[in-house]
């Protein structure tokens, strides 16, 4: 048995390349990666183009404005009797935002499932979770899925500062963390009306998006950054022309600011932008995010030497994310031959479908799968995003749900071939025990369930 357990913990290099850094092997990826795993990995970093023609954040605002208009109309007509047609229309509009959100979430998942560059999708999902937004309220239901498409994907292989600025100026983030109505205490607006500062976004920018909670900032830094980004707001489609980000000078706190000991004398929007650019290149930001990337891709306890390599790349290359990722791929520390991580539900579901490659996947069912496994898209419910730790995903109840889901998926495909899926997904990196259990299973469904639930498939 000791021999068996030895073999169960060693993974081939091509398996590491495809399964640790990507969303799991699909088709003959393992064969392709085998010749030169590192080269295969580097070629995986490709710009992500969303080809699915889903609504943009601007579309979401237009639809939302229409919905509110209809709602108002309904309210006015409440005393009169409503025609059933009107009722139906209102009901449809009410559900429309949620439908769109489910469609968009599923569309992203499907692209990750069929992509030939799944490593880039892992990276996109990493940053989408890093800049986590949740669907609280009707407007956020529609807006949440647009952030990764409009602010993160276009900057995925560029400099972190550009991604940071795009995210913090995107309506989804501004509304989610309440900056759109944050007013400088001495702004022109505050002199006329009783309005004031909201420090939520500023705090999370430093705690979660850049420096990290131990990144060396104080409460007064939070307030200074909050003041620096006052006026960063979102257009109201009913009252203003167009939609999206707007800088409101009358809401901005006048005067210069001091953040982390540095003075910012800029006026208007430039002040906050410079603050964010400096935060993006702060050494603590480099440490925090490189550590988080290594934690995500490689191990919950990444070696310090790996972090140092990545951090140096970050600081010497304007926080260029592609170069940081290449450093990660190049480091020997990333290629530990034992599995280091337990897949999150998202990783588990995507890698399953990549291995099985069904002809059609029902969007609704795909979305529900993630929901029921505990990782509903854009629903971390906290700006910290979903956890990336085994202890938060490997629980008794969570494991049971995975067993049930695996059984369900295995039963859905007629004449599912576990042996073929095993070869596609894991190649030779499989223990004798698992191999025998799968081959000896009493039915096709059971064989596939066991394979999907095997330690080799659950871990990477």
């Amino acid at each position, binding site marked *: *048995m000791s021999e068996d357990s030895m073999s*169960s*913990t060693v993974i081939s290099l091509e398996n590491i390349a495809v399964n640790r850094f990507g969303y799991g092997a699909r088709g003959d990826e393992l064969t392709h990666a085998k010749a030169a795993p590192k080269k295969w990995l580097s070629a995986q970093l490709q710009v992500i183009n969303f080809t699915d023609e889903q609504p943009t954040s601007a579309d979401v605002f237009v639809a939302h404005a229409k919905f509110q208009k209809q709602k108002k109309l309904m309210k006015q007509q409440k005393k009169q009797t409503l025609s059933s047609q009107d009722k139906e229309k209102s009901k449809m509009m009410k559900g429309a935002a949620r439908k769109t959100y489910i469609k968009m979430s599923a569309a992203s998942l499907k692209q990750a499932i069929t992509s030939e560059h799944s490593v880039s999708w892992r990276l996109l999902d990493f940053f989408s979770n890093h800049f986590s937004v949740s669907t609280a309220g009707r407007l956020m239901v529609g807006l949440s899925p647009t952030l990764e498409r409009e602010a993160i994907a276009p900057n995925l292989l560029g400099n972190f500062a550009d991604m940071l600025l795009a995210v913090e100026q995107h309506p989804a983030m501004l509304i989610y*963390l*309440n900056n759109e*109505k*944050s*007013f400088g205490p001495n702004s022109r607006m*505050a002199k006329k009306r*009783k*309005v*004031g*500062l*909201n*420090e*939520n976004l500023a*705090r999370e920018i430093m*705690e979660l998006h850049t420096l990290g*909670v131990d990144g060396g900032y104080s*409460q007064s830094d939070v307030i200074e950054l909050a003041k620096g980004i006052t006026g960063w707001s979102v257009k109201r489609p009913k009252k203003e022309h167009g939609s999206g980000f707007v800088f409101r000078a009358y809401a901005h706190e006048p005067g210069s600011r001091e953040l982390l000991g540095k003075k910012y004398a800029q006026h208007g929007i430039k002040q906050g932008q410079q603050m964010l650019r400096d935060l993006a290149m702060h050494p603590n930001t480099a440490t925090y995010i490189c550590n988080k990337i290594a934690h995500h891709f490689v*191990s*919950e*306890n*990444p*070696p310090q030497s790996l972090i140092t390599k990545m951090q140096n790349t970050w600081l010497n290359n304007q926080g260029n994310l592609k170069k940081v990722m290449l450093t990660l791929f190049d480091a020997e520390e990333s290629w530990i031959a*034992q599995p*280091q991580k337990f897949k999150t539900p998202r990783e588990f579901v995507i890698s399953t479908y990549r291995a099985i490659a069904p002809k059609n996947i029902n969007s609704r069912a795909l979305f*529900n799968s993630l929901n*029921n496994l*505990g990782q509903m898209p854009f629903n971390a*419910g*906290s700006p910290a995003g979903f956890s990336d730790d085994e*202890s*938060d*995903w*490997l*629980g*008794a*109840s*969570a*494991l*049971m*749900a995975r*067993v*049930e*889901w695996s*059984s*369900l998926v295995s039963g859905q495909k007629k004449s599912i071939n576990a042996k073929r899926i095993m070869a596609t997904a894991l190649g030779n990196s499989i223990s004798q*025990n*698992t191999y025998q*259990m799968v081959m000896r299973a*009493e039915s096709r*469904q*059971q064989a596939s*369930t*066991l394979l999907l*639930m095997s*330690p080799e498939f*659950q*871990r990477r």
Partner: protein
Amino acid sequence: MIDNKKTINEPLTLSSVSPLVDEDTLSRRKFMKMAGASLAVLSFPMASAFAVQAKGKSTFNSKTKPKIIWVVLRGALDSLHTIVPTFDTQYAKLRPKLSTSFNSPLLPLEKGFALHPSLRNLHHWYQDKSLLPIVAVSSGYAKRSHFDGQDFLESGKGEIDHDSGWLARAIEVKSKSALAIARSTPISLRSSLVRSEQVNTWYPSKFKSADEDIYAALNELYKNDAALKENLTSALKVKGLVAENAEGNKIQKGKFVDLAKSCAKLITAEQGVDCAMLELGGWDTHNNQSNRLSRKLTELDTGLAELKAGLGDEWQNTVVIIGTEFGRTAKENGTGGTDHGTASALFLAGGAVNGGKVKGRWPGLKPDELFQQRDLMPTSNSFGWMASVLSQHWQFSEQELQQVFPQVKSYSDSLIHS
């Protein structure tokens, strides 16, 4: 350094007496028979899911055991909007909008405090002397990050330790058992020293159950992966206990009120657990606080009422501890909400609680009385009160308390009926 110990070839060290756990060498056929039998027993609602911890003890009756239910409100509850200091003239000045936003009368407590109108059930309990609100408490964490604040509160050690929680250390000292209504073990119930059969997790599943054969096969499949095997074993123990409730196989949505119902059911099973943990998020009210808190507090109030109803007579032996990571700014912000603060409130509820009064010294709301001139000043430590509960409800000695809350001493106030 890489923690190579955490790989899957770790030898099994389960020192368990459960037939489901120690059968490393059990034949598949035999296991299937056994698992099948266990599952059949488990699907009977009053069956024992936790026979393990009761084995070897003289009493099999859980009905007289003192229970603790730990409820964590994630997101930082604004205590000033929940237990309103109506006597404090600063209150309306700091919160001109919020203080006038209550749409029904506040529910009076002693000393001029009053409960938010949504907490109707809790107020009844207060009148029955089974609710004890404690004002101006803090865990000692003062840096205003939700996530660190919650981890700090759950650790209970005066520092963040993701692998050691206060409730886990408590059940370790007294060899008790616990259940978390969660998909995986929350920090409060993590400890390397607690035996795996002492802590269980349960969360409603929406999938159809898999064929029972599969569980036997999985047990064999996981023979070299201790973590997977442990969780499988644990899951099989709870399986079936909650699934078939009175309403048939109705799909549960994971709402707090449903979770609270299921929690009560699991606790009151014949050899149920000694303590349980529930979580409720959504308290981070940076904007539109008045409406949002009305909704959230109603959800909390209704959920706790269901918990009480489900516990039946057990309520008399129960202490529910309701806490949050920190409080919010004394002053309202520019968007009808409040930002991250420091001191908040702690609630003790249950038939075992010596309630009907408000504990905790009021620090005042004048600028100089506030923490850093912005937050409610803590005047006592949450862990001190929780230690008192352990001491009076679970008979912890001072020495035993040190293993749970090494940084604090318990308060001498009488919190529990003797």
